């Protein structure tokens, strides 16, 4: 274990501003405005995953129209395709996909850090320096350190510690690379004055590792907080671990993290997980589940996940989710509600029914487009509703209402991990 004293740390510039707006008086939930280089976003926040520079089947305009202001790209995928040379030529991922809002780049690699390109078989070595340099070419607003992820369920504590130590060492190398002067700063077409470092335009987030071992997580938090990155991610979770273990890790980490920085739990996006994690003090989330499940015909609604491929919905002529305000669910031609920081006029409603999705799904790609749009809109709006509830200091009531609807009013179906985790932060789901 390497212990570093705070004194030896370089001071880290930040290209974001975190403004805490409200705090739940019961749980650890918080609401904030996060000011990023491409405009403000509000937390709690769900970030849709546009792995290869597009959210499956949606145009960037459609993604904007459902209220997304920060989406993910994958460093590894964009590094392979279109590749760093092309990205440099085009001028980054924002220009590649004509997306004028924020981008966060994660580095989900397949196996370890040295791998063969699945496209042409050439070996690609992702070092911390290379990863950061790639993310500089991508130009994302939030960039992630390269970390050593192993499955949390791994029984090998030795290997877990090694991964954690390595992640801390890699963070230092990432910081070093990130603090370099940007040769493009001050030139035409680039913001910033000559001599600016990348760190003044892009925000590096560290990633807390340590598996399910709370002591190791604590140690990692302590070390990484010292590095003073603009934001902090909790990584290595949602890999099949028991949900109560997951909650303990999030709870432990958020208690150790500074108040003034955004906390991002990676890979979480199932509605129940989201609302519980918010109660445990997390701010940002991403997950491919919502968009992937859409392509299999599953609609996320306030009354749970509906498999619209089922014959049950063949003649269900109601909206996908009658409570949803997204373009797919709103009645045909009805006007859109106002959006935060828009660059387009959002489309009026389409009035799509469950029966029509049933008719299309798995047979026409348009079915996938529509359901993807709805599911993303649902998750974004779920976090937005959570935010409003936190601001109005009624988050516990919001949680109770959410779980009640999600399980069709059957409290017997509430997952014990959620009941337990929320009890830990002062909310009894089963009461009342």
């Amino acid at each position, binding site marked *: 274990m390497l212990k570093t004293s705070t004194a030896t740390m370089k001071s880290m510039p930040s290209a974001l501003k975190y403004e805490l707006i409200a705090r739940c008086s019961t749980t650890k939930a918080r609401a904030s405005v996060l000011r990023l280089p491409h405009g403000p976003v509000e937390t709690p926040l769900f970030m849709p995953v546009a792995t290869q520079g597009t*959210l*499956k089947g949606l*145009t960037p305009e459609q993604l904007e129209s459902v209220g997304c202001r920060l989406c993910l790209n994958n460093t590894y995928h964009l590094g392979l395709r279109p590749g760093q040379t092309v990205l440099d030529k085009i001028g980054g991922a924002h220009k590649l996909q004509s997306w004028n809002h924020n981008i966060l780049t994660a580095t989900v690699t397949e196996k370890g850090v040295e791998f063969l390109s699945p496209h042409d078989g050439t070996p690609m070595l992702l070092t911390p320096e290379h990863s950061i340099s790639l993310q500089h070419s991508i130009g994302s607003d939030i960039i992630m350190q390269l970390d050593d992820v192993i499955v949390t369920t791994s029984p090998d504590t030795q290997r877990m510690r090694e991964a954690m130590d390595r992640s801390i060492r890699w963070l230092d190398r990432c910081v070093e690379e990130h603090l370099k002067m940007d040769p493009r700063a001050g030139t035409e077409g680039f913001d910033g004055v000559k001599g600016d470092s990348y760190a003044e335009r892009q925000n590096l987030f560290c990633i807390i590792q340590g598996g399910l071992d709370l002591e190791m997580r604590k140690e990692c938090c302590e070390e990484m907080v010292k590095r003073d990155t603009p934001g902090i991610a909790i990584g290595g979770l949602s890999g099949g671990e028991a949900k109560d273990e997951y909650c303990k890790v999030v709870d432990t980490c958020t208690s150790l993290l500074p108040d003034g920085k955004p906390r991002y739990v990676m890979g979480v996006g199932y509605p129940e997980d989201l609302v519980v994690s918010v109660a445990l003090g997390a701010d940002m989330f991403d997950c491919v589940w919502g968009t992937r499940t859409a392509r299999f015909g599953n609609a996320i609604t306030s009354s749970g996940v509906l498999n619209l491929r089922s014959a049950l919905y063949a003649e269900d002529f109601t909206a996908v989710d009658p409570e949803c305000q997204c373009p797919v669910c709103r009645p045909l031609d009805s006007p859109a509600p106002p959006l935060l920081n828009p660059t387009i006029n959002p489309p009026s409603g389409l009035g*799509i029914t469950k029966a029509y999705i049933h008719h299309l799904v798995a047979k*026409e790609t348009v079915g996938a487009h529509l359901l993807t749009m709805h599911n993303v809109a649902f998750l974004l709006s779920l976090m937005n509703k959570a935010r409003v509830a936190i601001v109005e200091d009624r988050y516990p009531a919001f949680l109770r209402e959410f779980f009640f609807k999600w399980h069709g009013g059957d409290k017997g179906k509430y997952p014990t991990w959620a009941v337990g985790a929320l009890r830990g932060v002062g909310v009894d789901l089963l009461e009342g």
Partner: protein
Amino acid sequence: MAVAAGSGIVFDLQTARTEGIPGSGNNGRARVGRFAAAGSGVSFDTPSFIAQTSRGAVPHLSGDNLRDHTDVRVVCVALEDFVEKCHPNVPVYNHPSTLRNFISHPSNSLLVLAPRRSPPVTTATSNTDASIAILTSVGFRILKVDDYFNAVSNLRPDIAISPPDLPHQKPGKTRRPKMVSRTELWLGELIKRNTPNTPIFAPILPLDIEQQQSYYLDYLKEHISSLSGLALYDARLAIDMPDDLKGLPRLSLDEALTPHKVLQQVSWGVDVLNPAFLTRMTDSGISLKFQFPGETAGEKEALGVDLWNKEYGASLEPLAMGCKCYACRKHHRAYVQHLLVAKEMTAWVLLQIHNAKMVSNFFAAIRESITRGTFEEDCKTFAEAYAEEFPEKTGHGPRCHSPSLNPQKALLTGNRLRGYQFKSEGGVKKKNPKAFNKLGGDRRETLEELETPPDIDTKVLERGRFVEISSG
């Protein structure tokens, strides 16, 4: 001359007057008109185009993109896309409202209902007096004409095409009159049962006009007040339409495979066309870039740009210079290429938006040219300015791994992709390599193969074992 045929369609033919005027530059058949559907408030100028749908959706375009980013004003929906189940369980029949409502169709375009897609996939069985053989997503089925008539009454499309009797193979001497008489019979029945006054288009069969002349065309003239238009299954027949039927708008379901073929159909006097190359080029990753009439400058220009071409990998140019479509205003060739290579669905969404815009621009220019009286001349310019065919498809389609070997053939019939949108004909080999195989399965397969008689090509059989069949 305006025709308001007892229903919601008003067709105002504007260039009938230029006909025959010497030196007008038009051969007198190309015509400009205005097509208006009173009920829905949708109107558009002709010549224009109809977009084919698959299961109620224009391929790749969700309703918002279709409505907000294209100028598609009329789409064709096939009932065969909706009737997989047995009658009482067909959702669209049990839907309390209209077809438009069932598919949430945008209000700025018209819905034409037809029994089958165009072109229809050849079925295993033939039609009968009371039924049409169709292909649904679960296989070949029959559609009772009765059910189609009921669907027209209940689903209230903006326009219904009366069912044509199209045989599943080339019709012989006796089949041809039967086609005509059945088509007439069904049209009569549809007119009789059309209580909600849905505008009806009468089919014109892909037979010589003489064969439809005696009874059928006379029948159409007699019932012209019940008709709102003609649906041509062979565009050439527009030339032969009798004067009495001239005022009816002509919708051609005969696929135009290149813009040159579009011009040809327009010159025959077709009003609404089926530019089948639109979705095909989109699927091929080719963005359209022709303009009418174009400029003749030495070498012939290509009709489209193959965005799979590595050359465009870092190109920040729009798909076509000067294009005002959403894809060109906001995006560039490099992005579309990136999406194509990454097999992301958005590639085809952007291409379809762009290509649909190019097609509507093309038709706008055609209308101007006819109105100006320079259509014939402009067609010649276009023929000189642009290549005859689209560039070869080099990339992968949305559902196909291997590029087509013979693009010429691919465009016509051969290389239809599998998957519902691209219906397969019998005998087509699988396009994608098998992803999963039996564990150590090779040995077992050879054993199985031995047990079954070897496949012999029909040609070999013909040559070797049978008496040669003369082609007559």
